[in-house]
């Protein structure tokens, strides 16, 4: 049984079929990259999995549980985390507070009412060291640069510690060195997490992907290893637009 099973997933936005009959499985501990031209429906696919968008049809099973009708917070509690294409961190909160919010092992109100936010723990420092934000721990997130904001959101997802992490264009706006670092982090995350990564940067995809799915106009165009995808004629056509 795969960790995530997507079957015949559909969604339409006022006539536009943004996702049109997607089928795929994701295995525990693998990194699946979603590729495709702009508007192919990659972000929308992630939206459907994390609950931001309701499907018009189809099923999504996570750890053998049908989740397509669940609330977003319920899916998050089951172990699905999401990084958005537009970096979404809390700009008015400090870096530490952002991580504290993300660290939601016990998301219930009673726990929140009876505990103080963690502002500086060994675990938090470890994560911040990993993404290179250790010296910004007390800064408001609004003061970070675009690249640092990306890092912070990645750090938040690591802190959240979801079993399945959905990453939407995590390296956008990063330098080559930063991208390499991200690749290394992603590979180390593989031990305990499953990742679905939407990316345009092919060299990044080449380093991290275990498997690739190429989308076009809402449906799956090709699936396979990096070599298979790079030699696929249909993919070339979709990208070059013939």
């Amino acid at each position, binding site marked *: 049984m795969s960790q995530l099973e997507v079957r015949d997933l559909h969604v339409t936005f006022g006539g536009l079929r943004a996702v049109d009959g997607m089928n795929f499985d994701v295995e525990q501990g693998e990194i699946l990259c979603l590729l495709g031209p702009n508007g192919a429906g990659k972000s929308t696919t992630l939206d459907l999995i994390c609950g931001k968008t309701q499907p018009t049809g189809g099923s999504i099973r996570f750890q053998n549980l049908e989740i397509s009708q669940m609330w977003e917070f319920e899916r998050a509690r089951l172990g699905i985390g999401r990084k958005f294409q537009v970096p979404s961190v809390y700009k*008015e909160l400090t870096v*530490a507070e952002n991580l504290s919010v993300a660290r939601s092992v016990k998301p219930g*109100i009673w726990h*929140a009412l009876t505990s103080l936010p963690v502002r500086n723990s060994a675990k938090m420092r470890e994560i911040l060291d990993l993404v290179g934000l250790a010296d910004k721990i007390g800064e408001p997130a609004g003061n970070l640069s675009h690249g640092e904001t990306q890092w912070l959101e990645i750090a938040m997802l690591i802190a959240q510690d979801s079993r399945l992490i959905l990453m939407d264009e995590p390296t956008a706006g990063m330098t080559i060195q930063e991208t390499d670092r991200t690749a290394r982090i992603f590979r180390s995350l593989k031990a305990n997490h499953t990742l679905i990564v939407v990316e345009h940067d092919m060299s990044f995809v080449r380093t991290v992907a275990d498997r690739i799915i190429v989308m076009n106009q809402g449906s799956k165009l090709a699936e396979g290893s990096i070599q298979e995808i790079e030699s696929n004629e249909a993919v070339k056509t979709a990208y070059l637009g013939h």
Partner: protein
Amino acid sequence: MQSRLLYDIIGLALFAGVILFGVPALFGYDGFELNTFSRYLSLAIVSMALALSWGTAGLLNLGQAATFGMGSYAMAMHLKLKASGDNLPDFMSWNNVEALPLIWAPFHSLTFTLLAGLLIPAAVGGLIAIFMFRARIAGVFVAVITLAFLVAFQLVVIEQQGLTGGQNGLTGLAPLVLFGWSVDIYSLSFYYLVGACLMIALVFGLYLTHSKFGLILRAIREDSERTRYFGYNVANYQTIIFSISAGLAGWAGMLYALVLEFASPTYMSVSFSLAIVIWCAVGGRESVLAAAVGAILVNLAEGRLSDVFVEGWHLLLGVLFLMVVMFMPRGIYGVIVDAGRAMRRKPVSKKEAQPFETSLNPKRES
């Protein structure tokens, strides 16, 4: 960041010193002045309650006066029954009510009254909150729904003359008897009673804002959508804080009815509700302590200045409020925080110095 907690504790200690020792000494233990100040302190509670929902969670409740009014009526009902003895309250006979209405009966009991004044507003606030937040109503729509509720509620209270005394409200109340102590509202003890209530409310409020609960509310205020993907049930968080805030408002209302010795539908008016918003904004909505100080300062100013500018006072208040919204959106609190930061010579970041925005619509990410 632990320093924020430290500053709040220092601030609270200073405030407590001024309220508990400074004020009585300053006014020479004059009964009338103490009574006036007790009134300000009870209003400080409702202002800090609004800071909890509006400042911390970004939920602008324009119906705060409704729950405040509920508390005041609960207290007034108890005292009216006491004043009427075995007879029916006078206004009921004027309205041809023959027997004591069922909902009045339990208010013979002081324990019930105190619980009701706290829990009924909290429950009503909670219900409104569930109703709104389950549907993910946010931003200005929260303001509109709570405002409409307030207007409707006040109309009901005025309409139901036999139950509520209508436009006149509940007057001719007996003094409260608390553990055998007949409360004299012009005494120092009464002043300390109200002061203690305010301090308890403030400690509670400060605890809430510094707890993880407070942090998550701030996260929700900034981006409720995002917070859901971390597994938080946003509607529940909003409901709880809304309900707590309503309960505190009810408590304040009870004290207010004691101080003024009557309850009136004007406590539930739109202008009263908006006045609470002013106090909270002037003090600073991000801090419960600042909101309490704001209520005291504005009311103090009103008390002193309205004698001087009998007619012009409201104009002055309008101008003051407009200036605060435009140039000090974080209120006195913001000014102090910015000044403190400037003194420590850390460069003030532009982003942080700006007020928080509550977006009219949820952000849309792709």
